[in-house]
């Protein structure tokens, strides 16, 4: 006859193992879901890049511009909730790693920005206004979070805007290049239509910058 305490320790250990492995399963599948969504838009933007390549060969800018503006709109639509999904997943999971989906998201983000700039330069008639928001990756910066929230608020009111959050000092070379190009020295910094706003900027100042 086995003692009830030993039985209980046995059962508890089994339950603990089951619990932990189930948690592991749920967390990894949750990360995988977000990761897959990001993968799809990343592939999509890579496919769009082929258009640019096509244009450089055949110089057929009319049809390219038409397709490009449609594709940009659909990309913006697809990536709308992706970042908040990724952030909440990152905050909630106890197992698994969100570094890779995060990096993929950032690469896709930069590609989208470059595509928009390319379309604006070559085609014109693109209604999207890109807003660049620079923040330091490895520093605690309360003002940056506030600035991000302010930008969220503006985006809610103006659907033409698309914010590109650019972490400076990480493995995204284009973000660093953009920071040097706009001579960013202070965080947070916001660039709208070539105009640089350093430090925490209020909603009204940003709004007037957009409308002018």
């Amino acid at each position, binding site marked *: 006859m086995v003692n009830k305490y030993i039985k209980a320790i046995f059962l508890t250990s089994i*339950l603990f193992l089951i619990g932990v492995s*189930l948690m592991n399963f749920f*967390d990894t599948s949750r990360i995988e879901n977000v990761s897959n969504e990001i993968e799809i838009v990343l592939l999509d933007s890579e496919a769009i890049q082929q258009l640019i390549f096509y244009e450089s060969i055949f110089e057929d800018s009319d049809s390219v511009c038409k397709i490009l503006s449609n594709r940009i709109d659909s990309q913006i639509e697809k990536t709308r909730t992706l970042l908040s999904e990724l952030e909440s997943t990152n905050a909630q999971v106890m197992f698994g790693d969100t570094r890779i989906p995060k990096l993929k998201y950032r690469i896709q983000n930069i590609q989208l920005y470059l595509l928009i700039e390319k379309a604006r330069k070559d085609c014109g008639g693109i209604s999207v206004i890109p807003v660049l928001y620079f923040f330091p990756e490895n520093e605690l910066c309360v003002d940056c979070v*506030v600035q991000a929230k*302010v930008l969220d608020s503006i985006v809610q009111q103006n659907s033409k805007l698309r914010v590109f959050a650019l972490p400076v000092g990480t493995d995204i070379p284009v973000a660093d290049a953009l920071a040097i190009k706009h001579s960013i020295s202070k965080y947070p910094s916001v660039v709208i239509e070539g105009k640089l706003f350093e430090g925490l900027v209020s909603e009204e100042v940003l709004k007037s910058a957009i409308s002018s």
Partner: protein
Amino acid sequence: MLLLVDCKTSVFNSLESYFFMHIRPRTVIIFLLILAVVFFCVKLISLYWVVIFFNVILLFINSVFLFAYFEIKPKEHKLKNWPSVTIVVPNYNGANNLVKCIEYVKNLEYAGKKEIIVVDDGSTDSSRKILKRISGIKLILNKKNKGKAGVLNDGIAAAKGEIIVTIDSDTYPEPDCLTKMVPLLKPGVSAVTGFVRASNTNGFVEKIQEIEYLVSFGFFQKVLSDLNALMVTPGPMSVYDAKFLRKIGGFDEKNITEDMEIAFRIRENGGKMVTCTEAHIFTEVPTNIRHLFTQRVRWYRGKFMNTLKYNKMLFNPKYGDFGVFTFPFSVIMEWCVVLFLFIFVAGNIENLFYYFTLVASFLTVSNNIQVLVPALFSLNSSILFYVMGACFYAIFIYYSHLLANDKLSIKKLPEITLFIMVFGVFLVLVFFTGFFKEINKSDYVW
């Protein structure tokens, strides 16, 4: 010195507005110390792992109880000579239920001699008038209010029977209770407890308590009895060996939960307690949350007091399963519950400060508060362990219904769900308040 920090807490006042509390400096220091220790624990390992750790302890306790339940073997009890019995009914301002209670007490079937003593503890309502009209009972009328323990001791002193049965004045035992409980009082056994159940089950608060009583006096008491680990001889109705009760000096008049204290003292003096889940005792339960809260805070403070008084029993193999498992683990669990609240607060202090600075800063640059609400709410997967604990409780509720011969109908689903999900939160608040009042040495309230 003690008046250095002399302020009233509005939070607790709102819970018990009639009760004014004074916070002593010691209380504040102890709380801050605990908060600091817990804060560093949460920083070292994550908040969720601490919660999982608590849940795993709870799973262990529950599985021990489950295995112990399966090990119970049925026992038979037969009695040839029925010893004489004295029923002591203490009463204080219980006029509403008194007539019904005495009627039930009189209707108790018993083959031996039966004596009923009603002790009135200086009631200020119509209790005395009612009592004087009832025939066939022995009356003791105290002029001064002594408290329940004192009244019970008066009853014990006047009792002639070999067995003493205490019955609260708001309790209605079923007629066969005595004939079922008394045979268990064999030599070596000093007290027998019964299956206490809620009699008034109209409101929802009562319905949740009905489930709680079913589980704690059904499943848990049955297991505890088999392990010889009963921690309380319930006030509503318990049967004692008169000789033993007199030997250990009766009830403790200074204790706020005299029914728990007597159980500890019986154990200390080598007495054994058993339970009879076939004897159903119905008692009035609090009908609103505030009364329930006050009652539970009193119970918890009584537990706290008795734990300190009988701390030598903690982890003491001399007291068997009680000393090694049930008593220490019940204390650990209660401390975990109090710690849990501390952890919840400590783990969120930093976030809270951060959030307030964020909001304050945000309001200076924008007035669109809507964006501050997180877009996606999601649950952490550590909730799985909570679900496992809930499953154990569902099993306990099922077995308790079997013990009570009650039907487990789908109609009971809301109260069972609420009992499993929400009652724990209520108990967390109770333990926290009780703990707070106990280290603050606040006055006792009934």
